């Protein structure tokens, strides 16, 4: 309630969209079948694309390295399945750009055992060895951002990480992967935390979970190993609590300064599924081959949480689960921040947390927009406390520089709360996304001129 908001255990503003999690949060994670052909784009994380080290026609084993990291902010890619490299060619990615990709044809009768690598022991390894191990395992943020985890965990010189926050918020409607991972993979999570503590040199861990996943919170609480300094914090349900900034504020009451990372206030935030993946892979020195994905939405027949090999074509996934004839929109990720894909020939990547299928009649968005009536609903929703109404008006006048310099445009992280509440149905986030790109481009051009 707006009247009594004491900001305790939460952040300011935010919204309460329907959670829509009931259909899948009770369904245990199931293994998905291997597709006949796996398509692996090399640009599936933030940073430099991976560099292919295999050739066409080569036979590879599941877990074998296919591409090495393209730099420090990059990760390698491993074979999700044993098979033959059929082709190396351009493939479409989620955002519409083309990327170099590998077409890997699975052996139909292989046992699909995973290749073992160099195990890393959390007790005897140095932080550097662990970070290297995390990079070698090809791990990126599985919450959706797909930012290389080893970069995030690297505490810069002069900074100290006091608190490690494990993000089990999963505030996006429909998605239940983190929920299921917390219920089913507690051992992997705690092993992963051991690696993370060593890598960041932290003494304290808080697992943040929203109140709609109390069963997961209780389950984790029950299984906390005696030797780990872990506590579980249950937070009131509110979107976008899963955003790093909001989560740090909700748990610690601190604000991360504009344009800075959580380490500025002594915090590192890691997604819970990423933590579980670290705990599962590093003891065996393996690379990531699959991930848990929620398949849901009104247009899906067999909804659920599935472990799906990375590189599985979207078309194959949807054929397996069965979709409504009238399928009109497919989102990769949640409905608030996910991307609507334009075709089914793209494949699952490391950052895919959900696949949502909507039919025409389920899409609540209407094309009719009204002028901004300055009702202030967006101002009351924006978790960064921006004025989306004013920004939207400026965007219409293409006053992009003013948006950035006077109205903190660049602090917007596109959570979509303003567009969600807008009674005039103004596509504010779309304006801001465009404006941010243009501002960044102009800044880059300016820099180029100065350098030249």
């Amino acid at each position, binding site marked *: 309630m707006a009247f009594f908001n004491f900001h305790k255990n939460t952040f*300011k503003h935010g919204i309460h*969209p329907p959670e829509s999690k009931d259909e899948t949060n009770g369904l245990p994670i199931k293994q998905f079948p291997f597709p006949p052909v796996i398509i692996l784009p090399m640009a599936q994380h933030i940073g430099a694309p991976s560099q292919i080290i295999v050739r066409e026609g080569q036979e590879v084993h599941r877990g074998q390295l296919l591409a090495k990291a393209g730099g420090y902010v990059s990760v390698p890619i491993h074979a999700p399945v044993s098979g033959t490299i059929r082709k190396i060619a351009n493939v479409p990615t989620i955002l519409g750009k083309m990327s170099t990709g590998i077409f890997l044809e699975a052996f139909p009768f292989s046992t699909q055992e995973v290749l073992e690598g160099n195990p890393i022991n959390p007790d005897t390894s140095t932080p550097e060895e662990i970070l290297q191990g995390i990079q070698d395992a090809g791990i990126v943020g599985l919450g959706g951002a797909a930012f290389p985890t080893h970069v995030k965990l690297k505490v810069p010189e002069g900074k100290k990480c006091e608190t490690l926050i494990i993000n089990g918020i999963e505030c996006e*409607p429909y998605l239940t992967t983190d929920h299921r991972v917390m219920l089913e993979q507690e051992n992997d999570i705690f092993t992963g935390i051991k690696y993370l503590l060593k890598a960041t040199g932290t003494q304290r861990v808080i697992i943040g979970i929203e109140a709609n996943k109390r069963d997961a919170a209780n389950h984790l609480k029950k299984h906390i190993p005696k030797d780990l300094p872990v506590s579980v914090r249950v937070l009131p349900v509110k979107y976008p609590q899963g955003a790093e*900034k909001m989560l740090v504020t909700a748990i610690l009451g601190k*604000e*991360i*300064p*504009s*344009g800075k990372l959580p380490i500025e206030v002594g915090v590192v935030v890691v997604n819970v599924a990423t933590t579980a993946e670290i705990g599962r892979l590093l003891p065996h020195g393996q690379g990531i081959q699959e991930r848990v994905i929620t398949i849901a939405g009104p247009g899906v027949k067999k909804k659920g949480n599935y472990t799906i090999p990375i590189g599985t074509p979207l*078309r194959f996934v949807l*054929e397996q689960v069965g*979709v409504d004839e009238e*399928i*009109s*929109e*497919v989102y990769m990720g949640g*409905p*608030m*921040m996910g*991307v*609507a*894909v*334009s*075709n*089914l020939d793209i494949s699952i990547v490391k950052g895919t947390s959900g696949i*949502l299928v*909507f039919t025409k009649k389920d*899409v*609540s*968005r*209407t094309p009719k927009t*009204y*002028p901004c*009536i*300055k*009702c*202030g609903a967006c*101002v009351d929703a924006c*978790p*960064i*406390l*921006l*004025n989306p*109404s*004013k920004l939207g008006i400026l965007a219409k006048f293409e006053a992009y520089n003013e948006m950035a310099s*006077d109205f*903190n445009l660049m*602090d917007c992280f*596109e959570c*979509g709360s303003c*567009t*969600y509440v*807008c*009674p*005039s*149905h103004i*596509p504010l*986030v*779309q304006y801001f*996304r465009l404006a941010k790109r243009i501002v960044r481009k102009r800044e880059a051009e300016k820099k180029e001129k100065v350098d030249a």
Partner: protein
Amino acid sequence: MLKKTLDISSSPHIVKGRSTEDIMKNVVWALLPVVFFSIYSFGLNALFVIFTATFTSVLTEHFLCNLSKKETTVNDYSAVITGLLLGLSLPPSFPLWMAFVGGIIGIALGKYIFGGLGYNVFNPALVARAVLQAAFPVAITTWHPAFLANRFSTISGSIYTWPFMEPQYDAVSGATPLSAFKFDGITTSTAELAFGQISGSTGETCAIIIALGGIYLIARNMMSWRIPVAVLLSAFLLSGVLYLFNSELYPSPVFMLLSGGLMLGAVYMATDMVSSPITPLGLWIYGGIIGILTIVIRIWGGLSEGVMYSILLANAISPHIDSVIKNRVYGTKRKVKAV
């Protein structure tokens, strides 16, 4: 085989579903009890005045949309609200042709020349009323008594006045509580004010029904609670201080809140979203300005009522409030930026 092409859109892919039209519609619903009470207490006169103002407003909006070859915007209900509010702020025996002129002015000058819904600087209904007040100062301050026995059978002669003719008033009387106090020093009891046993503009007489409509809209989250609270609180405080200072000279704060158009203005006119600020602090300042100005005009001004001019003045400053008062953005220290 799955269909190959899909629709794409920018996130978020779900929306709350409440539209601007829904908000406007609810304001109309909340105004209807006020309209009904108005007709109940002033009879056919009020019905005719309110109907004329509303009908003209909607017609003007439709006509102007046609003229500029745009799709008509009458179905967003904002013109209905403007018309209703104008009708409710006019005296019951107001000549209809003047109400007709007011309806046209409200939409055309108050709203349309600024660019239509969302762009108006002032509350359109008040722009119309201000013009009418300037053009017809006598007609707009000639009040009509409430609860006349024949109010459902006869219509005042002044209503039918031909354009540009002197209106003939048959039932002369009915000073409003404010003018009675200001010019004759007569006070009205609180109960009479609260339950609308008084004369005044068609819609301003029953404070309780107006307040209930406001509570409905606030409960449905379709109106900022800060504006009416700020307006009423500041008016109450200032008149309260004056009353404590000299209770002979100044009326009681309760009388100030319930009399005249303060309640109607605070709940339905000051809360026009388009012409009010957007940040919480801005809303408090805006409401405070209206409340204080109203009391200042009522007590020291030449007019007995000051709500209309206070709101119009506050509307004019509202964009400036917004450019000075901004929320402190997350992770920054800056609170106020110089204009």
